[in-house]
């Protein structure tokens, strides 16, 4: 569906942020992009969303080159779920979800009943109908994230790009979001998400991409790609990937645990 071919991007020539990145995203895929801070993950997402203009390389969706497509058309291919921050003004949840329909409105037209129904459906599907008239800024982080996912669904694009969807969420909300991501992929969405939790790759994703210093270091299934060696190398700190048995069903899953051993603060003598 989405194909990225030797993408390159920099703000200034001396500091190339993305050096020759190629990958593809298929239908039903949940691709998790892992990498340390400041390595270009967000910049890569911005390039895909046409917020940054690539210096070289092409992006194809269904075989069509979209590097020069208008934003109104792009919005029908790719929906973006940003990290949940607060709004400057007291918007209600429903008003935020309705913003997802803009790409489908002709100039000057108001959202029709059909547009409103699509938004209702998206909120219904995520189980947040009861929040529709609640003020976005008065919601918890988990609720806000749900509203933003609902907006992306209302946009009716087949590819969802999520920037750290589980950041700043507690365990129950993390699990909720990951389950929703799973269900969305079953319904035919392709999902590209960044994360700082390698564990989430095992929990929800079928493919993982490790990115460091503007290049892809590895790409493949979580079992193959996420190993003690690769993660330690990726984050430049010791990470152990081990297996755990989950009670009470005795299912086994892999977990990633960072190992603390070095003293960082120097002692004063």
């Amino acid at each position, binding site marked *: 569906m989405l194909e990225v071919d030797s993408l390159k991007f920099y703000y200034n020539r001396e500091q190339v942020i993305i050096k020759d990145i190629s990958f593809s995203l298929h239908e039903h895929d949940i691709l998790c992009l892992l990498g340390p801070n400041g390595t270009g993950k967000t910049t890569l997402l911005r390039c895909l969303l*046409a917020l940054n203009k690539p210096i070289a390389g092409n992006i194809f969706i269904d075989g069509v080159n979209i590097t020069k497509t208008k934003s109104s058309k792009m*919005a029908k291919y790719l929906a973006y779920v940003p990290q949940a921050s607060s709004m400057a003004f007291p918007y209600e949840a429903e008003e935020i979800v309705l*913003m997802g329909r803009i790409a489908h409105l002709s100039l000057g037209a*108001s959202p029709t009943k059909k547009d409103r129904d699509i938004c209702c459906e998206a909120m219904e599907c995520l189980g947040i109908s009861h929040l529709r*008239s609640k003020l976005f800024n008065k919601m918890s982080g988990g609720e806000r994230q749900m509203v933003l996912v609902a907006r992306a669904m209302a946009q009716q694009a087949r590819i969802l790009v999520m920037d750290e969807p589980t950041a700043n969420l507690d365990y129950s909300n993390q699990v909720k979001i990951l389950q929703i991501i799973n269900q969305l992929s079953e319904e035919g969405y392709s999902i590209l998400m960044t994360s700082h939790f390698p564990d989430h790759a095992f929990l929800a994703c079928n493919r993982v991409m490790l990115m460091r210093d503007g290049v892809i270091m590895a790409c493949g299934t979580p079992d193959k790609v996420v190993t003690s060696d690769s993660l330690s190398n990726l984050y430049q700190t010791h990470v152990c990937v081990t297996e755990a048995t989950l009670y009470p069903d005795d299912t086994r899953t892999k977990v990633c645990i960072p190992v603390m051993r070095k003293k960082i603060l120097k002692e004063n003598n």
Partner: protein
Amino acid sequence: MDKVSVFKNTNIKSKNGFLLKVVILFALLVCLFFLSFFIGRYDISLKTLIDIFASNFIHIEQYWEDTLAMVIEEVRFPRIMLAILIGGALSVSGASYQTLFKNPMVSPDILGVSAGAGFGAALAMINGANWVGIQGSAFVFGLAAVIIAFTIAQVFGGRSFTVLILGGIVVGSFFGALLSIIKTVADTENELPAITFWLMGSLSRGDNDDVLIMLPALIISLALLFLFRHHINALSAGEDVAQTLGVNVTLVKIVIVSSSTLMTVVSVAVCGIIGWIGLVIPHFARMLVGASYSKIAVVSFLMGGFFLLCIDNIIRGVQGVDIPLGVLTALIGTPVFALLLTKLKRGWN
């Protein structure tokens, strides 16, 4: 199934709630519009008022003095119209800029339009220009200020909105400095008081020609903003998010800046600088109908018109002293705003 149907019912209800509020505000404005004709030195009855207006369209035997007809049609009518149009225009520009910059502290003169217009007017005054010349000069320099600010932002800031605001502030203080120079060289007998008075705003010199200039500028600007209302609304989620939602951010930015500037610069040219309204009326509107741009634009216009007309009526009612408009808007508006803030706690965060 129940859930869905409940959902849709509330949907309709909240929409009607907005319509009801707009209808009430509109009715209030219309009432105040007619009431305003009775304020002033010449007393007039309701029947005479209606007959004077009707005589423009149908034949009615004239039983009133010519002066009375002139006062109503040439003095009170334009002044009342201008109060509504300018109050509305400033409020809608304020609402648009606040949504564009995602910043509740922004007012229509954020890009330097008032400072430029103030300088233009003062420059014309010390050169002995007539009233039309003063208005024209205010218009040209107000427009120039915004164009300079916008160019600075495009050249140095690219897409950054922060640089646009900074550009506006810089240009504003530049024209502020020029204005200070003019004030120091202006003759203190006539010119300086005239400049000072102009800077505080007044509708006392408004005439029907001003209404005729104001109307097309307002209609064009409001029509543009109406066309792009949902795109403008999305900008409050941030320019990047707005673009991923399908908004042509650069185009919408130009639409907002040019429409708001046109409305503000014409208002300022007609009546001088009136602060406060463009900053605060959008907040009144948000307290009433929430944050959605298409709603606050409509409500801001009605409330802004209503508010400025109230203020100007007080000025006309207090005979003898000509209190500057800009002074009274802030004097009366601030306590009202503070009171409302404590009553309705529809917070920003």
